[in-house]
């Protein structure tokens, strides 16, 4: 037999039906809602709790989304209002020159290859409608000028792709015009909300936070029990019963952390870390069962909702008569505080300009919001030698640091976390330059996307971050990925399980607490995870 007589390999598989590549131009290609890549709709009960429009039962994969009859008018009116209200939005609609600098900067595009996940095209989804309805040239030329009508397929496409943007702002770092696609997404979601298109992973935390104070909707007595158990755990590890001041009127400082830190592992170890550090320095502070959530999923809903949820923290600060607010290792809380709080609920002039009672340092950067990030607070303690530390207790941990998007890009907190990590752990290795600091890659689970129905999309979007972690794992033997955000601690854990199973995830204050020598403590044989510290034997009488 000769070679040419054999069937060709491609002939053998020609009957297999593959998904075809898009053949039509992107604007005419309707969305194919494939399970694993979209988010489930918000439940009616959650919309009702916060008085949002069109609460009903609907399903993404069904044809009829039960929209109000006049949905187009509602959205176009909302569009017009926002163009008038937000100058930045109008600018972002007008000034993109389609230079492509942002095209390959989004982790969802880099990990999946869907062109509509290029930031420029994501914004184009809405910009095309803007051109059609709000510019003269678009009104006259329509399609030819890159405009298109707001039809049902277009609306569905918005829903798919605006809930495929984690609002991380990586793309904005590379845009020569400073166009922030995350803000375009935010407006896109606001418009979708007007006709009742929202996702449950955003609206349930919003409703719970609004009604009860935290994302899981746990009432005060449940919280207190939960916190007390962690106090017990610390006692088991260190022999010390740490302070746990709750709703204490007249305390100097109110401390607010994301609820993920006390409901979830591995955030819980960070929570225990806060308790240990704040006890050791003897800080006069208080927890609150009302302002029990640093996270603000209003940020993923609407500007109005950001304001409503953020206001609770300040109302509680006022009620408890504290001087200022300290905030935990949360991610997007800091974006809200740094970029929105002052103009939304500020000025917080009933509070004082934050001063560390331990070191006397004035946090001038927090003059307006009166809220200080714990990384700033703790790195200041360390600089002033206020913590007695034994970093060798972290010798079994080889760390790298993921700059969580919001503390990094929205607040610029690059050095403080690194200062702390270097002091409490001898083995710290940076990931490659293009994946850290302001260029950090997102965990792909922020902005409400960190749910289980969206798992495939998360794994795609998580690939760039995971790939850089694998690099330091292979080159430097890294076994712990640190981060400064509760969503990260949850979603990066899952991401590592898929992409780099030998790397665990945790927060910074967990390592601080491991290293912290507390007055009167017993011999430490386990770390804050309760895992044995290698090379340290328990004393015989303890066994």
């Amino acid at each position, binding site marked *: *037999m*000769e*070679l040419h007589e054999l069937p*060709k*390999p*491609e002939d*053998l*598989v020609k009957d*297999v039906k*593959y*998904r075809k*590549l898009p053949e039509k131009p992107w604007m005419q290609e309707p969305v194919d809602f*494939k399970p694993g*890549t979209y988010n489930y709709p918000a439940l009616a009960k959650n919309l009702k709790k916060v008085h949002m429009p069109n609460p009903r039962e609907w399903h993404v994969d069904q044809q009829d989304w039960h929209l109000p009859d006049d949905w187009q008018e509602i959205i176009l009116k909302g569009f017009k209002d926002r163009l008038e209200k937000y100058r930045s939005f109008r600018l972002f609609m007008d000034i993109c020159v389609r230079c492509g600098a942002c095209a*390959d900067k989004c982790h969802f*595009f*880099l*990990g*999946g*290859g*869907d*062109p509509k996940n*290029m930031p420029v095209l994501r914004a184009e989804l809405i910009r095309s409608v803007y051109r059609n309805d709000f510019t003269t040239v678009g009104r006259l030329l329509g399609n030819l000028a890159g405009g298109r009508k707001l039809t049902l397929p277009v609306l569905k496409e918005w829903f798919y792709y605006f809930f495929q943007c984690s609002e991380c702002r990586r793309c904005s770092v590379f845009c020569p015009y400073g166009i922030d696609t995350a803000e375009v997404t935010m407006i896109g979601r606001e418009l979708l909300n007007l006709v009742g298109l929202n996702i449950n992973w955003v609206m349930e935390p919003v409703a*719970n936070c609004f009604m*009860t104070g935290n994302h*899981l*909707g*746990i*009432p005060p*007595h*449940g919280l207190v*029990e*939960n916190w007390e*158990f*962690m106090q017990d755990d610390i006692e088991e590890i260190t022999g010390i019963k740490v302070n746990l001041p709750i709703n204490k009127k007249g305390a100097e400082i109110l401390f607010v952390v994301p609820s*993920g830190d*006390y*409901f*979830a*592992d591995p955030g*819980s170890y960070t929570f225990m870390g806060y308790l240990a550090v704040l006890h050791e320095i003897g800080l006069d502070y208080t927890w609150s069962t009302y302002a029990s959530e640093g996270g603000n999923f209003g940020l993923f809903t609407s500007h109005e909702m950001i304001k409503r949820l953020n206001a609770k923290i300040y109302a509680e600060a006022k009620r408890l008569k504290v001087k200022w607010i300290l905030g935990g290792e949360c991610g997007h809380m800091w974006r809200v505080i740094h970029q929105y709080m002052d103009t939304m609920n500020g000025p917080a002039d009933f509070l004082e300009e934050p001063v560390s009672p331990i070191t006397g340092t004035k946090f001038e950067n927090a003059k307006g919001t009166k809220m200080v990030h714990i990384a700033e607070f703790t790195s200041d303690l360390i600089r002033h030698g206020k913590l007695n530390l034994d970093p060798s207790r972290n010798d079994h941990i080889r760390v790298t640091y993921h700059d969580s998007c919001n503390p990094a890009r929205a607040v610029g907190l690059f050095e403080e976390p690194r200062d702390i990590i270097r002091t409490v752990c001898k083995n710290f290795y940076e990931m*490659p330059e*293009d*994946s850290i600091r302001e260029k950090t890659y997102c965990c792909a689970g922020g902005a409400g996307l960190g749910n*289980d129905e969206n*798992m*495939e999309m998360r*794994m*795609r979007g998580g*690939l*760039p971050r995971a*790939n*850089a972690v694998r*690099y330091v794992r292979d080159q430097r033997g890294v076994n712990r990925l640190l981060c400064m955000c509760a969503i990260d601690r*949850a979603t990066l*854990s*899952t991401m590592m*399980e*898929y*992409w780099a199973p030998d790397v665990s995830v945790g927060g910074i204050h967990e390592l601080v607490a491991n290293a912290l020598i507390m007055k009167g403590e017993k011999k430490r044989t386990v770390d804050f995870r309760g895992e044995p510290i290698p090379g340290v034997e328990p004393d015989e009488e303890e066994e």
Partner: protein
Amino acid sequence: MTLEKMLADNKKTIAEKWFQSIVGSYPQEAQRFFLNLANPITNPVGSTINRGVEGALECLLKGETLESAEIIQWLDDIIRIRAVQDFTAARAVEFVFDLKKVVRKTVGGSISNSGILEELLTFESRIDSLALLAFNVYMQCREKVYELKTNELKRSTARLVRSACRVWESGERCSPEDLKLE
């Protein structure tokens, strides 16, 4: 001349063409980004696939047994990515068969005697077996995706469940249901 020698001489070309054919399975707009191998950190899909095909090809040419941990690892690197992308199962592992096309295109013209042709058929049946292993890897990745959901849920409420159990065991205060509003 043996097939082994022909393949070894053309290893680089074969790896390149194999890589390009895999990238060809992605949307056109993405291809040019995935083909750019200048920086593995900013192009994880392209660079991982490229490393994977080079590694797997090297193993095949060395005549390693198909079950060798190394070759499976190279396949795993590629399939782990494709298993969560917009591909059907068939499309996700089809790239293994692409190697046959590439080999025939690259060295087919120089096959001059039936001895080498026989060698080619043997080599191709090794590729077929590799494809079967690829299905195994694909299935493992998909199973992992389902496991991720369960494990994530467990972690996300770990502390709540723990305190509920402790309260329950102690017989004091409230029941686990009290800890959750709804």
